[in-house]
């Protein structure tokens, strides 16, 4: 049972990292960025390339992957979403789906369809505590995720750009009248969200020893589910939603069969949308008149 809790936390914290990007972008743009899963994939590939080809140590590969994905996120925003800032929301959503398909196929064209192994740049240790088994990956994923989430919390709550993000999320027009460049805030939000997704991509790619162009699809949907569960637009909600979703999946597999995993996740999504669409910590956003 304790083993399941550890597994759930590990899986959940990676979902949380992805969910944060969805929720932050939704917060400022009211857009579900469906290309977010592909950013995760791009991050995993950059991490793979830098540690394999360039032979960088793990931490450096991680930083390069996060920075690279942040850049891709900003470019995606600039070419696919910014021109549609005043367009109906559906148009932006369609543009996001198009971007998702484009990025996946670009990766397919550049990297080929095969699944690549992620060479593990450190020695994997296993720790057995009675029946509880923890390995280096569990520790690494948990520590990295928690560290990044604490850093994000500090960034959003304490810094100037964090205040600007929260102000823009509440009221873009007033924020711009306070001297905030809303476009810069939006670009920054994409950069941060994309960097977090890339971190998740590298961690998961390494944990499952597999990186391929379509790897972003399922975690992208799971991250979206986690964001909705926690309350889309809420940063603590995304963290909570990620952990809960990971737990639910792991417990579900333990009680039922592993085939039920995705059914459980998306069952939760359907249920939340039916019963409490604003999620656990989400505010009821009223449309402004």
């Amino acid at each position: 049972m304790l083993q399941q809790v550890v597994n759930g936390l590990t899986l959940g914290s990676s979902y949380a990292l992805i969910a944060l990007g969805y929720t932050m972008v939704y917060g400022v743009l009211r857009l579900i960025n469906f290309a977010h899963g592909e950013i995760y994939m791009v991050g995993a590939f950059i991490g793979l390339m830098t540690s394999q080809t360039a032979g960088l140590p793990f931490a450096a590969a991680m930083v390069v992957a996060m920075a690279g994905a942040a850049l891709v996120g900003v470019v995606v925003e600039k070419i696919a979403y910014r021109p549609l800032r005043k367009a109906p929301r559906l148009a932006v959503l369609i543009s996001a789906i198009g971007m998702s398909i484009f990025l996946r196929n670009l990766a397919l064209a550049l990297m080929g369809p095969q699944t690549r192994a992620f060479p593990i740049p450190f020695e994997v240790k296993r720790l057995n505590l009675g029946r509880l088994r923890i390995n280096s990956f569990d520790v690494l994923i948990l520590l990295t995720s928690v560290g990044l989430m604490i850093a994000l919390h500090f960034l959003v709550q304490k810094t100037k750009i964090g205040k600007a993000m929260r102000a823009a999320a509440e009221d873009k027009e007033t924020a711009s009248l306070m001297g905030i460049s809303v476009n810069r805030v939006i670009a920054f939000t994409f950069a941060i969200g994309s960097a977090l997704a890339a971190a998740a991509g590298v961690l998961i790619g390494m944990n499952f020893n597999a990186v391929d162009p379509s790897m972003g699809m399922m975690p992208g949907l799971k991250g979206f589910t986690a964001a909705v569960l926690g309350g889309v637009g809420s940063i603590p909600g995304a963290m909570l939603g990620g952990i809960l979703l990971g737990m639910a999946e792991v417990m579900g597999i333990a009680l039922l069969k592993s085939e039920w995993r995705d059914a459980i996740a998306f069952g939760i999504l359907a249920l939340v949308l039916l019963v409490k669409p604003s999620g656990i910590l989400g505010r009821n956003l009223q449309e402004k008149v």
Partner: protein
Amino acid sequence: MPVLELRNVSKSFGGIAAVREVSLSIEQGAILGLIGPNGAGKTTLFNLVTGIYTPDSGEILFGGRDLATLRPHEITDSGLARTFQNIRLFGQMTVLENVMIGRHCRTKAGVLGAILGIPGVRKEEAETRKRCLELLDFVGLDVDPDEKASNLSYGQQRQLEIARALATDPELLLLDEPAAGMNPQETNETTELIRRIRDAGKTILLIEHDMKMVMGMADRVAVLDHGVKIAEGTPEEVQRDPAVIRAYLGDEANVVA
């Protein structure tokens, strides 16, 4: 040279002229009152000046620069700030954070500095805090600075909006009905506050429905009706102007007057 000058500014929405050929100018350190019946185009004029709308024709010069070429946040940078008729604070943020948001356009710290926590950045942030607390004091807002802005009373929220606007260090302050919904005592306090702001060297453009308040403190008053400026002058001149009386009370008023 006037601080703000409007030259034949027009703006229409779907064939309805909200503002028609309006020319106005405000001298440094003056209070200009902008009055007119509901729907006269006062708020539209504010939105034109702050860059929310762009004029269909005409020019808006602020310190000699054409505002039409600037984005809203650049207009704020250049020294123009406003408050809103329907209060638009960041309700989920604290009182102090609301003021600090206004101050940030005057601070230099970049994103990277904030992430890395460079000492200079921390020092700047501490100075920003101090300055913003002083501003809360200046507007007479006596509440816990860490209170959520949405928990403040209506009158306090109006004061906070003024503090936030002042934090941007504006040369020109636009106040959109600062005394709306206030009781007489709060209105008096607001009048005092606006005088203190003017005495601190700011120029003020004021929209207000409270006639006594506008006439009591404005140096000059401009009157809009159906998007057209129908009168401008000292409060006494405007109060005697038949066109103004007609706009407010209808044609019959002439007979009575």
